[in-house]
């Protein structure tokens, strides 16, 4: 067998690395002051309570320290991040009216095609504003509200007031306090009781202006016995200055309801992705997270499920792929806060070419959560000896009537498997590629088709060998 050390090509992200001329009409000054917050708020025509909320969040942000754990955030200079960039366009309901350069960006990312492929609605975020929004008639007829957060704040102010940042309060950590102060854009979905949305809703976020942060807020309420599949995808062009993404996702899944939330994060490699996602799952309701992390320079992403009602259920399937210059700290948190709640976590990570994957998780079982079960499994693949792969799981169990299991494995591609496949006529390169694809397959099969294709493209590592 060849002992030659071979090379796995980096993901070719040139198709994502195009940028348009920065024509934004308004840019906030660098650095954050109450004046800036007031300006942002006025520009967005916030109600008074929202301005108050922003100012209080800013106060918290200025007081709170950076996290004392996790990846290094030294490349992040908050003063350098323009928090708000409003694109030079108004809300458009018609694709034809979207400015050409913006449209061009989305065309190249394949969004209209995705819509043609029967996705329910496309909310594509350009910089900090939703520029294009379209919800198919049949979904609207069912009483489903799918709109951008700014419109929701006008049209459904009571609902927003009731739910906005109640699940992820700005006191949680520094970057969510920042989010509370400067949030802009994002999606709002309301699925009424008993309604099953049969086609997935999709939202595609993008960053464009150099140095601009992205602070979109996603708020989804799935009422009793309703169901929804929401897809979020991210891709950004490459820039030289550090970019920050500090979005927030709040998901309320009511009694007997079901929500599937799928994400492929594919930020460019200068992005600091410090995103906070949380779901509150009520009685007999369930959430399925499908999460793929491929892009960004540094990620801290741990979708959290709070199993708040008896019989609530959560399932997390994740894949993380870190290449050169990437430090992807991902995982999940689950809180069993009611009796007979169930959680499953299944993650895979691949590290290559000096990249670092850190799997981090927390499973908590509260004293009242008797009869609960949790099962966690994580597997890591090291493709070379320059990379890093850490597993940092924690379990906190406060009641005896539980069944909590955890298993993890770190290793490389087994020589035996390669040998076996080669004995069946495959080249060493093909054998390695096949094994890596097989490793990622349990996650790929959970993704919607177009995302599975995107992920396969990302993983299709022109594997002229690899590893060894």
């Amino acid at each position, binding site marked *: 067998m060849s002992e030659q050390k071979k090379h796995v090509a980096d993901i070719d992200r040139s198709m994502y690395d195009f940028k348009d001329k920065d024509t934004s009409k308004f840019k906030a000054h660098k650095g954050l002051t109450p004046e800036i917050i007031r300006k942002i708020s006025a520009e967005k025509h916030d109600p008074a309570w929202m301005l108050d909320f922003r100012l209080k969040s800013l106060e918290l942000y200025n007081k709170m320290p950076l996290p*004392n754990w996790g990846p290094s955030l030294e490349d992040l200079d908050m003063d350098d991040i323009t928090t708000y960039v409003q694109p030079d366009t108004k809300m458009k309901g018609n694709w034809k009216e979207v400015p050409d350069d913006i449209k061009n960006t989305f065309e190249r990312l394949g969004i209209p095609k995705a819509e043609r492929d029967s996705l329910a609605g496309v909310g594509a975020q350009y910089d900090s504003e939703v520029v294009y929004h379209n919800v198919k008639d049949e979904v609207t007829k069912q009483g489903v509200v799918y709109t951008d957060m700014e419109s929701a704040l006008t049209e459904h102010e009571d609902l927003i007031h009731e739910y906005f940042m109640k699940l992820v309060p700005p006191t949680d950590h520094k970057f969510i306090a920042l989010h509370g102060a400067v949030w802009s854009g994002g999606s709002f979905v309301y699925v009424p009781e008993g309604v099953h949305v049969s086609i997935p809703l999709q939202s595609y976020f993008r960053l464009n202006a150099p140095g601009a942060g992205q602070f979109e807020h996603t708020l989804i309420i799935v009422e009793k016995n309703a169901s929804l599949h929401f897809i979020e995808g991210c891709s950004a062009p490459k820039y030289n200055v550090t970019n920050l993404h500090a979005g927030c996702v709040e998901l309320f899944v009511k009694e007997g309801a079901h929500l599937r939330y799928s994400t492929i994060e594919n930020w460019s490699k200068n992005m600091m992705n410090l995103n906070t996602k949380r779901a509150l799952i009520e009685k007999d309701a369930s959430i399925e997270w499908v999460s793929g992390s491929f892009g960004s320079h540094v990620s801290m992403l741990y979708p959290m499920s709070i199993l708040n009602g008896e019989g609530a259920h959560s399932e997390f399937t994740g894949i993380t792929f870190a290449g050169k210059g990437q430090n992807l700290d991902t995982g999940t948190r689950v809180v069993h806060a009611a009796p007979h709640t169930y959680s499953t976590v299944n993650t895979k990570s691949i590290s290559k070419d000096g990249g670092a994957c850190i799997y981090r998780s927390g499973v908590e079982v509260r004293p009242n959560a008797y009869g609960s079960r949790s099962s966690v499994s994580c597997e890591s693949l*090291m*493709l070379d000896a320059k990379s*890093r792969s*850490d597993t940092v799981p924690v379990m906190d169990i406060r009641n*005896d009537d539980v069944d909590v299991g955890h298993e993890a494995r770190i290793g490389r591609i087994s020589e035996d498997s390669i040998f076996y496949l080669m004995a069946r006529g495959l080249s060493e390169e093909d054998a390695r590629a096949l094994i890596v694809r097989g490793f990622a397959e349990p996650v790929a099969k959970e993704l919607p088709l177009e995302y599975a294709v995107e992920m396969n493209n990302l993983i299709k590592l022109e594997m002229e060998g690899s590893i060894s």
Partner: protein
Amino acid sequence: MKLNLKNVNCLPTPTWNKLGVNGGIIDTEIPEIVPYTADVFPQTLPKCVEISDVMKTDIVFMDGDVDTGSGDSVREFVKKNHNTGFFIEIKAGTKVEEPIFLNLELDNQNPTLVDENTIVAEPGSNVTVVMRYTSKPGFNGFHAGMTRIYAKNDATVTLVQVQSLNETSLHFDDVGGTVFENGHVNLVQTEIGGSHASAAAHLKLMGRQSGVNIGNIYLGGNEESIDINYLVDHYGQKTDCEILARGALQDKSQKIFRGTIDFKRGSAGSKGREEEFAVLLDPTVRARSAPLILCEEEDVDGQHAASIGRIDENRLFYLMSRGLTEAEARKLIIEAQFTPILSRIPIASVREDLQTSIAGRLNTHG
């Protein structure tokens, strides 16, 4: 006196502070440290072993290369306050047949014990050391100990530390060690008593084909807290480690188990396995676990598994259908849980004593 220790039993990579496993602060009142006068060695020592009393000789410890599991603050406290301790050196090529026992008992005359020990196994030697920490009932005892282990080329050190202090005593047990080529360290720590018991070890596999086996038994009752931190660093090639913990918690006891296997770059061909099984016997217990694997080497195999829950109803039912009462069946299942670790203790009398003290502390309620 005031005992104030910071960063005790820290995870090498911290995580969410809210989970409370990153490492602790000890801030408590302890008895004044007084000279320890009890007789420690119950037997005549073999000639191939050289033992020096650290209280009577000027020994300069080779401390620069040893990190201990509990961290700097505990280590410095022991170095500064030790009231007993031994430097045990096994000459090259000697196999010490009989285990060396150290009986470290706390009583009214000796309520405090701060022992600083060093075990140096010269190349090709083999030794078993058993440290028994016990206490008479009815007073607040305090023990803090640190043991350094050097297992040189082809040497094997087996260290068994048995802790069964009374319910009002504090216990800190800290181990640090370096294992050289083909060397091996077997460490067994058992935490059966104490109001607060801390057990920790940090072992470095420096030499090629060196190995470490750590076994831990914990049994928490009343309002006791147990705090465990094991770290094994793989530096050498083809090194091997296994961390195995078996525990049971009852009443309002709580424990934190941390175990880290760290594959450093260059440790190609190494294997590490970590496993913790905990049985929870009452709804009021709290069990926290953080089994970490850190890895910057491709050619390694690292695994960990943890399982936390109550006694398997099917096994209970099976035993009861064979005529055992529920209490007897429960006891049998819990005791069986400890067997894989007990079997690592090479001395029958120590195993039996442990089984007796475990049985004595287990509640029998169903």
